[in-house]
């Protein structure tokens, strides 16, 4: 193609060249014609003058080639036609050849000049063309720039050119803006301040003006712009105007602002974090995903005595730690941080022991938590350390103090439980072993009078508890122990004066000796010796404990002594009581047996008297006069009365003596049975008896209860005014009584009310005694034992008796017996 084009162009050039040569020939022929026409005028003068014209025309038009052709042709034609001789080429003389030569020279010169003119013209045309082209491209470039507003202003700031970018950015079309002053791009405030003019001046004087500032669009909206103004000068250096390049960087500015804000925020955040970290009372450091420690707070540096730079978990070997549980060292891979980073493990408060970088041992709680990004990858891990060394120490101290307290308490308890001095001392030593590292101990009680010491518990040099040793074998004369104090011999070997036993102890391998005095009531009564087989085995705490124990021992030993004394007295007293009780019991039994046998033995002769009296009356009654009969009857009556007395006495004494079995019994049944037995008496006295049935069941003994009730009813029947019909009312009620079993026990109270003669309150206690009678035997015969039996019987059944009465108003006797409860 290119080749084709160049061929076509070449052909065009050749044709144009041929055309130029044709023009040259033509104008030569025309010149010949013109000369021929002018020949009449000119004759033979200036034969070649006219031919200069075709030369000039050809050279001007066609350049050097056609010019030379026209020159040659014109010379030939002129010479042939107009140089004498005409119509031939022969020349004569010098003038004609000179003329021809001049003509040729002129022709060549003209051709050459024209050639160079044509060349120059062609060159300048080419330059102009390319210039035009480049200008057009440049304009295109400028006009097509859309991101920048590029425009020209004249000296006064009026817009003279406008590109697409300017239209886009500022909103004015080219037509609208050309000729307007550029201050319309400024904000009104700046216009007010005459900023546009100042800018132009600055640009003109400094050759440059640039700023970032607000500019205003056609619609009045503002944008953030970078503006560059450059003055434009012409070739002479005269100021022609200004170029203005404006760019809308609102977006960029916003982005930058956002970025800056973000950066500020993150800076703040970091600051905040660091502040928080530094104020935290716990140690914190943050590692990146590779294990490099990025950030560490003040506390963690304090805890560890500095934190070394570490790049990876392998370097955590610098951190020395042990598991509290088993004291095994913590390998780099075992650290909570490593596990957080590698396995994403969260570890909370693992208790470990550490050796810090300033070589302190501490106990810390170590926690580590991984931090993951959105994708879930572990990007960081946070380690939190809490120094619990003090707490641990406090706990340990507490534990030890607790242990010590517990031991002391236990010793107290044991001492309290112990009954003898020996028990007290051995209890103390036994428990002391738990808090004191002694290998041998002994509690010694001094007997200064005998210059002896008794070993209460423990042992020394083969001497065991219970044995006594001479004081001088044990006591340090040169170092008497003050009362209530502790003496500590760190090493027996260093002791100059060693009593026999202490020397033996040393030989047997005992080195440390801790001695505490036992002081009771301001008197040194003994010592507590603690031996250990290593020198300087006891610390301050041990000495305190020893002193404390010695004090306890002193009190306890004193107490034990008192207790032993007391025990002795008590035992003696108890024995005395037992002896006396036995004596009393046997005396009582004897008395009772005596009473019984007296009553019993009395009865045999009495029965004889009764029988003999009756026999006398039966067999010999008719031989007595009235008086004799009366006397015999009196004997019989007295015998009967004595018999009743003996019967009652025996009944009463049996009540006291026999064992009684209590069981639920029916009051109703017993009252009914009693009344049946007393039927005869009731009938003979024509008594009225009212019973409020049903009567409840009670705890009692059937036979005794019958005796009791019999006596009560007999009493009620007996003690009525003469000629009065006895009226008896029997009822029962539940009360919360006070029996011999105690207060508030549910009881049944059985009432027997009569309409009898009543009892003066002053006698009401007396009547329940044995042989107590308020009336003469003639008025109301009786033994005075009935109510005593009532009381004794009820008391034997765990109840009480009583009476409510006024003389002449009847009596209300009551007996209180236990109600049946579920426990029976």
């Amino acid at each position, binding site marked *: 193609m290119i080749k084709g084009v160049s061929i076509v162009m070449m052909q065009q050039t050749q044709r144009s060249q041929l055309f130029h040569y044709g023009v040259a020939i033509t104008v030569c022929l025309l010149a010949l014609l013109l000369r021929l026409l002018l020949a009449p005028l000119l004759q033979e003068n200036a034969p070649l003058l006219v031919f200069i014209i075709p030369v000039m025309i050809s050279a001007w038009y066609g350049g050097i080639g056609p010019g030379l052709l026209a020159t040659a042709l014109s010379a030939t034609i002129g010479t042939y036609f107009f140089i004498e001789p005409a119509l031939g080429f022969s020349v004569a003389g010098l003038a004609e050849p000179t003329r021809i030569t001049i003509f040729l020279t002129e022709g060549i010169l003209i051709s050459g000049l024209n050639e160079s003119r044509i060349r120059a013209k062609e060159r300048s045309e080419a330059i102009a063309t390319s210039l035009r082209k480049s200008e057009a491209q440049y304009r295109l470039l400028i006009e097509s720039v859309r991101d920048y507003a590029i425009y020209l202003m004249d000296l006064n700031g009026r817009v003279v050119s406008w590109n697409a970018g300017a239209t886009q950015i500022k909103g004015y079309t080219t037509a609208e803006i050309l000729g307007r002053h550029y201050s319309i791009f400024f904000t009104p405030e700046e216009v007010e301040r005459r900023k546009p003019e100042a800018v132009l001046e600055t640009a003109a004087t400094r050759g440059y003006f640039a700023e970032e500032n607000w500019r205003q669009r056609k619609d009045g909206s503002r944008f953030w712009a970078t503006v560059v103004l450059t003055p434009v000068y012409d070739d002479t250096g005269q100021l022609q105007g200004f170029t203005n390049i404006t760019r809308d960087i609102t977006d960029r500015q916003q982005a930058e602002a956002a970025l800056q804000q973000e950066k500020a925020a993150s800076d703040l955040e970091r600051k905040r974090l660091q502040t928080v970290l530094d104020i935290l009372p716990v140690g914190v450091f943050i590692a990146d995903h590779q294990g490099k420690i990025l950030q560490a707070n003040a506390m963690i540096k304090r805890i560890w005595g500095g934190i070394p730079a570490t790049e990876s978990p392998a370097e955590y070997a610098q951190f020395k730690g042990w598991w509290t549980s088993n004291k095994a060292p913590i390998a780099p891979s075992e650290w909570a941080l490593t596990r957080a980073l590698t396995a994403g493990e969260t570890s909370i408060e693992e208790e470990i022991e550490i050796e810090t970088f300033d070589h302190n041992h501490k106990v810390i709680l170590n926690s580590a938590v991984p931090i993951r990004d959105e994708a879930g990858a572990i990007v960081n891990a946070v380690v939190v350390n809490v120094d619990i060394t003090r707490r641990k120490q406090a706990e340990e101290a507490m534990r030890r103090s607790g242990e010590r307290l517990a031991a002391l308490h236990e010793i107290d308890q044991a001492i309290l439980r112990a009954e003898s001095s020996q028990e007290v001392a051995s209890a103390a030593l036994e428990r002391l072993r738990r808090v004191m590292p002694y290998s041998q101990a002994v509690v010694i009680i001094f007997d200064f009078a005998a210059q002896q010491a008794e070993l209460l518990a423990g042992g020394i040099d083969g001497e065991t508890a219970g044995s006594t040793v001479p004081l001088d074998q044990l006591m340090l004369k040169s170092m008497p122990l003050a009362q209530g104090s502790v003496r500590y011999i760190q090493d027996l070997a260093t002791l100059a004066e060693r009593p026999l036993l202490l020397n033996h102890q040393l030989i047997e391998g005992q080195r440390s000796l801790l001695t505490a005095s036992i002081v009771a009531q301001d008197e040194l009564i003994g010592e507590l010796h603690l031996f250990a087989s290593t020198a300087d085995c006891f610390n301050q705490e041990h000495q305190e404990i020893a002193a404390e124990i010695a004090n306890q021992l002193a009190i306890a030993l004193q107490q034990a002594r008192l207790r032993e004394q007391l025990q002795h007295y008590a035992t003696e007293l108890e024995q005395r009581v037992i002896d006396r009780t036995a004596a009393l019991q046997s005396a009582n039994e004897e008395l009772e047996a005596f009473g019984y046998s007296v009553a*019993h*033995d009395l*009865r*045999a*002769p*009495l*029965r*004889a*008297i*009764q*029988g*003999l009296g*009756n*026999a006398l009356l039966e*067999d010999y009654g008719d031989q007595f006069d009235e008086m004799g009969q009366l006397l015999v009857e009196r004997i019989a009556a007295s015998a009967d009365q004595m018999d009743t007395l003996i*019967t009652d006495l*025996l009944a009463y004494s*049996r009540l006291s003596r026999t064992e009684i079995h209590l069981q639920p019994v029916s009051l109703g049944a017993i009252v009914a049975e009693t009344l049946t037995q007393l039927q005869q008496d009731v009938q003979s006295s024509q008594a009225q008896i009212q019973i409020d049935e049903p009567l409840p069941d009670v705890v009692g003994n059937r036979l005794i209860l019958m005796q009791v009730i019999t006596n009560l009813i007999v009493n009620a029947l007996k003690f009525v005014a003469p000629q009065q019909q006895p009226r008896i009312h029997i009822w029962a009620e539940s009360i919360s009584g006070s029996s011999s079993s105690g207060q508030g026990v549910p009881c049944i109270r059985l009432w027997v009310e009569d309409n009898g003669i009543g009892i003066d309150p002053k006698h009401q206690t007396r009547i329940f005694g044995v042989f107590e009678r308020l009336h003469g035997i003639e008025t109301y015969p009786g033994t005075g034992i009935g109510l005593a039996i009532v009381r004794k019987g009820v008391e034997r059944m765990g109840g009480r008796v009583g009476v409510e009465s006024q003389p002449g108003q009847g009596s209300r006797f009551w007996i209180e017996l236990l109600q049946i409860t579920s426990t029976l």
Partner: protein
Amino acid sequence: MNNQSVPFLLVEDDPAHILLFQRALRKAAMPNPLQIVSTGEAAVAYLNGEGIYSDRLQYPLPHLVWLDLNLPCLSGFEVLEWLKQQPALQWITIIIVSSSENTSDVEQAKALGASAYLIKPINSIDLVRLVETYVSSNVNNDSK
């Protein structure tokens, strides 16, 4: 042998009661031979046929023994106890005659094998009733 002829043995140390017993027998018209011993040992010796009591013609074995409880040395209960351990003497009827009304005495006597318990002073009516009850049955048993 009839009721009138069975021999009685009275063990009693109180002459007054012996007197009253004899009077009661008389009043009851009981001519039965009556032997009297005044101590527990004597009673045992009698029943055992020891010493002078080996003469059974003079001291026949009684059908009925009237036994007081309150005896010197060997008490009535002890005599009773001994008697009940003698297989050969099981047929003899023992009646306690005591001035004790004590229930425990009564119960003990019954437990030891006494047939009846009389409370002094004894009267003829009781005597007759008892003799009729115990002697008759014994006699009848013997005749069979």
